[in-house]
């Protein structure tokens, strides 16, 4: 209980307050907003991004970053659509697409963990590379005509009102919480993020952990790409372009430090809700998609800037107090 109270006094409490304000604001704009269907729709519109945000949380806590996830999503979706178009069996296409996702992640992981290059540079390069790969498959065309069951799966509810992507997301949330907050692997993710040298000297296999994380990131991004293809029903070379902005914003806004070592899944869940509701609210206000992207960009910067400013203010106030105390002491002594 005291843990929860402590969390509410910090960043999570701030996020919860922001979330409540946005929900209240949206509800006052449109009465249908609070209905279950709207909430499912809300999730469904960005479901692929929020699935990837979960694994991105692991990566950033581990003091790395993966800029290539959106391109991986585009690449797997393109491979799937291209193989389907070329007349290969659909099951095979699904398996190959997922395999491409896993390999893309492992490729990143190899350069980062075993060659020792910074993830920022590697994933920036592969972000361009994987997107280029998607273009090689799709050129400037658009492929669709997936099997009916696949489109149904992406667009319609599976159990009750819930579509399959949302069910998967729920499952992943549970797994992510268990692994990150309650397992040994999760503790190692934090330790490596705090100080990789200390982690290495305490006998943690840092390289293997990083390789596993990036491979998982590729696999999940690949799955998200397939879900995205199912939801849209057609794929182009630029499918999912720019998604990394939303995904990284969700994670950093959730209180995960960009320098690694701190943050939690709970904070990220709150910030996911904030971003989803904010986008919904902006749509209610008739703001265009481009303007929404701009707002998300500002949110990304603010999510790092605000804690910095808070820290700076706290330090300044502390210094002032200390100065006052010492000058008072000097006056007393005098």
């Amino acid at each position: 209980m005291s843990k929860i109270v402590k969390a509410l006094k910090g960043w999570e409490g701030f996020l919860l307050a922001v979330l409540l304000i946005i929900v209240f604001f949206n509800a006052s704009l449109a009465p249908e907003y609070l209905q279950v269907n709207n909430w499912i729709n809300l999730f469904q519109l960005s479901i692929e991004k929020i699935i990837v945000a979960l694994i991105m949380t692991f990566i950033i806590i581990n003091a790395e970053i993966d800029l290539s996830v959106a391109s991986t999503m585009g690449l797997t979706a393109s491979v799937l659509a291209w193989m389907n178009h070329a007349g290969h069996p659909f099951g095979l296409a699904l398996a190959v697409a997922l395999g491409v996702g896993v390999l893309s992640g492992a490729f990143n992981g190899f350069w980062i963990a075993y060659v020792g290059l910074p993830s920022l540079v590697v994933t920036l390069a592969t972000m361009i590379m994987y997107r280029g790969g998607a273009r090689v498959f799709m050129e400037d065309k658009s492929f669709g005509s997936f099997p009916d069951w696949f489109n149904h799966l992406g667009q319609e509810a599976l159990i009750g009102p819930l579509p399959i992507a949302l069910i998967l997301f729920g499952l992943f949330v549970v797994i992510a919480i268990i692994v990150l907050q309650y397992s040994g692997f999760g503790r190692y993710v934090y330790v490596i993020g705090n100080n990789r040298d200390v982690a290495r000297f305490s006998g943690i296999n840092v390289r293997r952990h990083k390789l596993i994380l990036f491979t998982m990131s590729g696999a999940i991004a690949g799955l998200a790409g397939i879900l995205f293809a199912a939801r849209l029903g057609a794929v182009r070379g630029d499918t999912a372009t720019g998604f990394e902005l939303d995904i990284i914003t969700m994670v950093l806004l959730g209180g995960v430090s960009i320098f690694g070592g701190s943050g939690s899944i709970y904070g990220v869940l709150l910030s996911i809700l904030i971003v989803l509701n904010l986008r919904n609210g902006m749509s209610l206000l008739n703001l265009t998609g481009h303007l929404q992207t701009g707002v998300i960009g500002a949110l990304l910067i603010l999510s790092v800037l605000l804690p910095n400013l808070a820290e700076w203010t706290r330090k300044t106030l502390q210094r002032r107090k200390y100065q006052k105390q010492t000058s008072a002491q000097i006056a007393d002594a005098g």
Partner: protein
Amino acid sequence: MNKLMRRFQPEQLREFILLILILLMMVFFSTQIQNYFSPRFFNRVSTSVAIVAVLAVAQTLVVLTANIDLSIGSIVGFTAYFGGQILAHNNDMSPLLIILITIGMGMVMGIINGLLVAYGGVPSIIVTLGTLAIYRSMLVQFSGAQTVLTANLPEWILALPRMNVFSIGKLDFRVMVALALVVVLLFHLILKYTSYGRRLYAIGSNSDAAEMAGIASKRIVFIAFVLSGVLSGLTGFMYLARFGNITVVAGLGLEFAAVGAVVVGGVNIFGGSGTMLGALLGAILVNVLDQSLIRWQAVSEFWRDFLLGFLILLSVAADAVIMNRLKYLWAKKGMSLSQRDNDLPAKEANHV
């Protein structure tokens, strides 16, 4: 041998290798593409190099301080579009004024980046990923879904990309190329001979040490971002002159071409080393590859992004593995000019 080693440091060797690579690539493509060495091809490549070269200079200034600026593509698009709109509505505006306007717009955007990175303490990748989206969304929002058309632009700006300083036969040496070369040369001199330039290297090598040596690193980094904005604004003007028709997607992805040129050109992405000459060679290599792929029938031109990404990865890996090994060799034999190189072989990768 020792004399030779002392004369040629690994960094210079790298530029030499780059030059050979460019030549080899051109020889290869000349066997594949008919009539490859045509004057037209030279003119086209040199004009596109001009645009990327100025951006590469901008990116180099930032990368030297161990930061990165991903927003330059959006700044180019923004300044090209609104410079074009202003010019389309005031046809008799003087050329100097419109250049100053585009540079001014770029400068404001650079100042925003610089303030957030240097004084806000937000990592440059986060800031510029955000402003990449913000500047582009402002462009789309304020444009009202209109396009700048060549028909509305004054004569002089349409003639500018075809204007020559001199030509040898059909080989034209364009004004825009001259402008880019002046920028490269100017910043080469700044990096080499001014205290500001040397401080950029100092901060990139070791920001703590630079701080303790009394360098105002925040201000230096801030100015680097402002200069990056200014040069992107200038590129916006060049982009407008070259293409004439400007839509809201103008300059999309140019930041990757610039990062590619810089990294391929041997500017260390961890900061602290690299030259403007290298960045220029990198820009040439990236553009020659790009333009040759368009004309090469055997391979679809859609491979270009894939190859660009792979090239960036390869250059960084080569930097980390081969260059460090070479420097270690030099340092071991005591041939190194700087003490710093003795700390090698492996510079641990810093995170994010």
